Each structure stands twice: as C-alpha cells, then as structure tokens.
C-alpha cells in the first residue's frame, strides 16, 4: 500500500494532522485537570485582594505594575534612567503611546 510516494506523503500528512487535532484534545484534558488549581488561584486573589502577578520581584513598579505610581521607575534622582532590566519588558505608560482624541468632530465652535 505504501509503495507509492504519494501514499507515503498522505500517511505522513494524516499523521501530522492527527497530532495537530490531538493538541486540541490534550488542551481540553489539561484544562480540566488544572481547573481546581486555577480556582484556587482565583480564591487566593479574591481573599487576599491581590492585584498583580508575581513575575518580576526586583522593583515595585515591576512587581506591581498596576499599582506603582508613574514616577517609580525614575525614582532615584531627577532625569534618572530606570535601571532594572525587566523594565524594558514593560510597555511605556499608556499616555506616551495613546493617540490624541480627534476633537474636530466634537467641537461646537470653530477655532
């Protein structure tokens, strides 16, 4: 049956496709197995009132990026650069990247 090259190619593709579909089944099975742990995490967050993930612990603005004040990365002296390497993996503050509101359609009187 596998004497022809096309048959061998189809078998290989079918095998890869089966593995591809298997990843979805595996994800479902794994998710069900981890449901209890995830619920436990949710409970801890609710009970302790946690606000951030514990990913970088070296500075307060990387340990609690959602809570740190905007100046905390440059706290050492005026014009200081922030010096923790993980800071480069945090996005710049929203106001630096946000587009300005388009006001021309909202203003009532012309400038």
């Amino acid at each position: 049956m596998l004497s022809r090259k096309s048959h061998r190619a189809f078998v290989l593709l079918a095998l890869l496709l089966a593995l591809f579909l298997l990843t979805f089944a595996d994800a479902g099975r794994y998710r069900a197995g981890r449901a209890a742990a995830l619920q436990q995490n949710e409970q801890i967050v609710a009970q302790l009132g946690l606000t951030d993930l514990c990913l970088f612990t070296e500075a307060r603005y990387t340990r609690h990026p959602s809570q740190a004040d905007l100046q905390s990365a440059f706290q050492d002296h005026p014009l200081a650069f922030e010096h923790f390497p993980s800071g480069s993996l945090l996005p710049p503050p929203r106001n630096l990247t946000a587009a300005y509101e388009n006001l021309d359609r909202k203003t009532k009187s012309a400038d």
Partner: protein
Amino acid sequence: MKTWIARQKALIDFTLSSLARRKLKNLGLLLVYTVIVFLLASVMLYTHALRHEAAQVLKNSPEVIVQRMVAGRHDLIPPGYLEKLGRIRGVQNKEGRLWGYFYDNVVSANYTLMAPSPEEHGFGRVADGTIVIGAAVARERGLVPGNLISFRSYTGKLFVFTVAAVLPHEAELVSADLLLLSEADFRAFFEISAGYYNDIALSVANPQEVRNIAGKISETLPDARIILREEVLRTYESIFNWREGIVLVLLSGSILAFTIFAWEKASGLSAEEKREIGILKAIGWETGDVLKMKLWEGALVSLTAFLLGYVVAYFHVFHFSAALFEPVLKGWSVLYPRFELVPVVDGFQIATLFFFTVFPYTVATIVPIWRAAITDPDAVMRG
C-alpha cells in the same frame, strides 16, 4: 472522479521524485520553514495562554483601589479617609490594606509582605508571631511549617516568626514572594501607627457605577489615585502584548531571512527546474498539469512545515514550559515562580498563522512556474 484522483496521485508521485532529486536543498527549506512556524506558534501560544490566565485570575482582584499620592509618590492613607469613603453612596465594602516590600539580604530577593484581614483569607488566621509564606520563598530559604525565620526590619530591630503554613505551589503565579503576617506584626515590623493603611480596597454595589463612584472619590479626596479593576486587567493585557511584540521584533530578522530564502527558492527557478518544465511541456504535459504539480509541491512542503512546527510548538509551550522564551515572556527574578500554564488555543490565531505561513509560500511557488509554463518549451529548455 477516480481518474481525477489517479491523476493527482501521479502528479504528487512526480512532484515528490522531483523534490527528492534536490534532497538536501528541499530538506533544508523544510527544516527552516518548520523552525519559523515553531517559533511563531510558540510565542503565540505562550502569550495567549499567559494573557488568558492573568485575566482569569485577576478578575477577582479588588474592584477599586484608592491610593494617596504625595509629591507624585505613593503615601500612607491617614486616619479619617476610610470614613470619608464610607459616606460615598454606592460604596459597598471598604477595607484598609496593609502591604509592603522587604528586601532579604540572605537570598537577595524582594518579598511582598501583607497583613490579610483575619476573617477573609482561607489559610486559618495568621496569629501574632507566625507567618505564612509563598512557595518560592519556602524553596529559596529551605523552610517548612514549624521552622523559625528572622528578619531585620528597616528600623534595625530583629523579628522572629514561626512559619505557620506554605501557600500552595499551584498558586505561585500570584503568591510566589508573599509573606503574610498578622496586622499587629506588620505594623510593628514597618512601624506603621494604628489607623494608617497602605491603600484602600473598595467594592461597589453596582458594577455599572464604578466610574461614577471613582469620580466621586476623586472629588472627595483630591490627593487620591484611583485604580479600577478594569485598568489592572488592561495593564496586563498590554504587558503581554508588548512582550509578544518584543519577541516578534527579535524574531523578525530570522523571519525576514526566511522570507527571502523561501521567495528565492520558490520564485527564482533554477536552470534545472526550467529545463524540467521545458521537457515536460515538450513531451505533452499541459500548462495546467505543470501548475498543478507545482501547487502540490508548495502545498506539501508548507502543510508539512505548518503541522510539524505547530505540534512541536504546542509540546514546547505546554509540556516543556516554553523553555526557550520563558525568561522574556514571563519575566525573571530571584524568586522565580514555577507554574504550568493552562493551554488555551485560539482557533482564530491558528487560522491567522496558517494563512501567513502556508498561503504566501504556495502562491510564491505558482507564479514563476506559470510564467515558465506558458512560454515555448524550446525557449524554456534553451534558457
């Protein structure tokens, strides 16, 4: 139909033989193609799962946090603020929170210290003189329940605590560096007087009113900085988007190199390939057959690379903890949390990856062949 199938099989046989004649070059292409799909799929699967997990876990974080700012810095909440907030209509619960950071010289790591409210948390009440620690702290300091641990506070006093419990390993993503103390111990350790808090957590009766209540809070307490839960969630969304972007930028060099390589391979026909097409046309193949043959070539190579790359990426991310990208996407620190991500696979993302990897290559193989196939066989063979 049978004839059609037999015809396609014959074309595939011929295509594979043709590929086998340039085995090394084609295997090299397949390998590089697979690696590119693997890298892209790994980044995509990892960030999507991490983003999903963050959103899932942090949806239970406090609805509103009120901080006090002095000269642009986070300051303690003085007595009286809690009462003022309690008078705002719509505020259901209010709780002063006590938390802070402590640098431990022994392992050169920062801990997050917290005094949970005794009635709410689920690990039993943290009694005075005892401490509940995160799993990463226990690992770094080699502690088990019952051990003693001492810290020298910022004022120079030595405090000794008994480890009452270790937080579960499964919760490391949110609690790896936590130390939970009683309120009295926390206040003594940081010398925070009674009535002062680090910030205030509020819950709101009607979630639709959160923004209005935030407005009222900033009117009542002009020095307050208000952080809503939706902002916390948005922060994490943007952090992981940013990191995904950084990794993709780092990968972009290799992606571009592959694009040039694949384009060159697919679109620039070698003299040998041109001669092959000329001979095929001369012995009676139609232009359509040549195109179909090359279509099969493109489809077989790109499909194999896509499926193989994706499957390997899935196992890399969810069964081998994404060893290649972990430090960049997750973060790094002395107290590195160990956690397993729950696989969340987004069909739309896979479709996008499929479209941007399989489709361009297949098209790139077709166009030059079509050009060669419509010209006169004699001219093609002569080159």
